[in-house]
């Protein structure tokens, strides 16, 4: 009990001392706060961005992708964003890879791009595009079991389009032209279940585009992945309208055992095919993380410099305060204050400065995380969806602990200097 009272008395005295120079104290606290805000935001970004990349990759459903040879960065972009400028494979590759004993499930995907009308009121406005995926529903949904249909007014009754098998039974004129829309496409085009949607496609080898009309069979719930911005149709329909019969863009694979070794072995078995490259998710993930690691290191260095400057500021503030109170410290010692009492008092003052700055910095970082995320998304194409700045309780706790630790060490020198003063000399110097 006495111990608590002792601490409380010293803390109160330290607080009063700090309030004697409100402007100076505020400036020192602001310095610490800014440094902590930078550090917390950076930690939140690192955590959030890693999480977003992992989520985006996990939500792809594929552990390994077999695709046409090309740049691995393009491959990574295509996996995450459904990119353009695509290369195609013969669908015999799918049939061959499906025989692999290590494969748990496999699905062929055809990716194409549908052109949209200009998006400007001016006559020369540029057009936009929508990603069209031709899929086989049973194998695709095995890969992505979380896909579900949006329900509610305008969306009820959603279902997958007529499957390829059913289509081939029909005469061409009876084939139902149906598509399933990702959530964002439906929102962007303001489509509901049962509406029609026009897709303008330039078939391979053709010089002019053709517009096809489809009925919307269903609208998928939001997934936070590239699927939200995709129009899905039967694989055979996509191959037909893009005039690429027997061609696919990607073979998505889930292995029975998901490990670096299993992926390497799978790659060794199939890399001998002349036209394919095998892209594992670990590879894509590391490629993307490598891209941002340099930027993160630079921002980290800035945060460290900011923290060092803030510590120097705190030490300077406390030393100035001690210098001003030299006489007062001398009197305190003369009337009975021990060396450890003075040490403790100055130390508490430093800790209080750092703690206040740390708390303010955390509040600023937490409050500003949404703004930072908004700015990052508008300045850089990050290639991932979901939150990219995540300030978790762990980061907050660690930052607060770090600030206290910094205060602990920053206070040692000023506290030692003040406690080492001789009473008479200090009183004389303070006069």
């Amino acid at each position, binding site marked *: 009990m006495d111990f608590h009272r002792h601490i409380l008395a010293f803390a109160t005295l330290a607080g009063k001392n700090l309030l004697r120079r409100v402007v100076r104290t505020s400036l020192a606290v602001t310095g610490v706060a800014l440094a902590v805000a930078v550090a917390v935001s950076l930690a939140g970004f690192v955590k959030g961005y890693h999480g977003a990349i992992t989520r985006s990759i996990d939500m792809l459903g594929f552990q390994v992708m077999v695709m046409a040879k090309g740049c691995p960065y393009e491959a990574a972009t295509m996996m995450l964003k459904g990119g353009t400028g695509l290369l195609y494979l013969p669908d015999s590759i799918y049939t061959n890879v499906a025989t692999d004993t290590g494969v748990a499930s496999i699905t062929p995907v055809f990716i194409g791009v549908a052109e949209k009308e200009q998006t400007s009121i001016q006559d020369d406005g540029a057009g936009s595009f929508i990603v069209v995926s031709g899929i086989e529903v049973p194998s695709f949904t095995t890969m992505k079991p979380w896909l579900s249909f949006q329900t509610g*007014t305008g969306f009820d009754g959603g279902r997958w389009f007529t499957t390829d098998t059913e289509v081939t039974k029909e005469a061409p004129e009876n084939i139902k032209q149906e598509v399933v829309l990702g959530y964002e496409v439906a929102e962007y085009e303001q489509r509901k279940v049962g509406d029609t949607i026009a897709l303008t496609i330039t078939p391979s080898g053709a010089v002019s585009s053709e517009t096809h009309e489809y009925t919307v069979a269903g609208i998928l719930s939001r997934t936070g992945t590239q699927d939200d911005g995709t129009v899905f149709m039967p694989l055979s329909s996509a191959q037909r309208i893009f005039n690429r019969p027997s061609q696919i863009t990607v073979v998505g694979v889930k292995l029975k055992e998901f490990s670096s070794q299993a992926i390497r072995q799978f790659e060794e078995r199939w890399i001998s095919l002349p036209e394919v490259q095998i892209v594992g998710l670990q590879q894509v993930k590391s490629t993307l993380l490598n891209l941002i690691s340099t930027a993160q290191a630079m921002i980290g260095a800035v945060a460290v410099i900011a923290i060092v400057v803030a510590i120097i500021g705190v030490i300077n503030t406390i030393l100035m305060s001690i210098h001003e109170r030299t006489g007062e410290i001398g009197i305190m010692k003369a009337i009975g204050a021990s060396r450890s009492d003075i040490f403790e008092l100055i130390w508490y003052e430093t800790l209080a400065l750092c703690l206040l700055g740390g708390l303010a910095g955390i509040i600023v970082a937490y409050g500003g995380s949404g703004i930072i995320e908004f700015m990052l998304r508008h300045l850089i194409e990050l290639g991932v969806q979901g939150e990219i700045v995540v300030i978790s309780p762990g980061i907050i706790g660690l930052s607060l602990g770090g600030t206290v630790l910094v205060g602990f060490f920053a206070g040692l020198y000023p506290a030692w200097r003040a406690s080492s003063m001789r009473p008479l000399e200090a009183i004389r110097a303070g006069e």
Partner: protein
Amino acid sequence: MIFSRLYSVRKVFLVSLIGILISLCLNPHVASAAIGCTLTNPAQDLRFVFPDMTSYKEDVVTFSSLANGEYQFKELESRIGRETDPVFDRIDTPYTVYSIFRGAEKIGIVHGVNIPGKGGVIQLFLSVDPSTRGIRQIFFQRLESPASKLFRDKPFRIQFEGLSLADWYMHDYYREKDPSNSRHKIAQIHPPKDLSEESLIDYYAIMQGVRKNLVILDLLLFQRASDQYFLRAQERLNEPTGVRPKEGS
């Protein structure tokens, strides 16, 4: 002395609390689901419409933000003559109104609406004269239709120039369409020549879109200046068929 200290502590506590609340409010993780219709590139697009403009102002209004928002939203339905789309036309749909200035003078208003067309959304913008509330020009930002070019062409769009919401309400008044009646201006609008039967859906969507755009402007911006025409048309529509005044009277 004690009271003044207590007062200071309370002040510090209150300031801190307000700071925390502001920072929490600044964390904008929640986004509205309703989608509005904004220009892709306002500065360039507005200069295209008003070459002599010097500045513009952007105001975002929703019915939900109005004091009697729900009532006004119901009024919107009665004035466009149909129910609003429950998914995409909601009370919290944001409407962006661009006010165009030449110096201090307000020379125009530009406002866009989303209308579902046959093949995709139609984003229809009107530039309106702020003094007469009449249409200066109509534009399409997005128009996914096989007849897109026909609708975007000047001969079709020019038919709307000078029309105002009063003309649409009068269109309700003259229920029997008579293009020879010069006061019945809406009946004189024609679909583009060579328009295929299947693209008529988009034509009707555009007609509805122009009316909806003008009604929203009238409710949100012009303090229902055209309501007298609406009320007159309603009175007539409620009259028994036999006593309807002759067209043009």
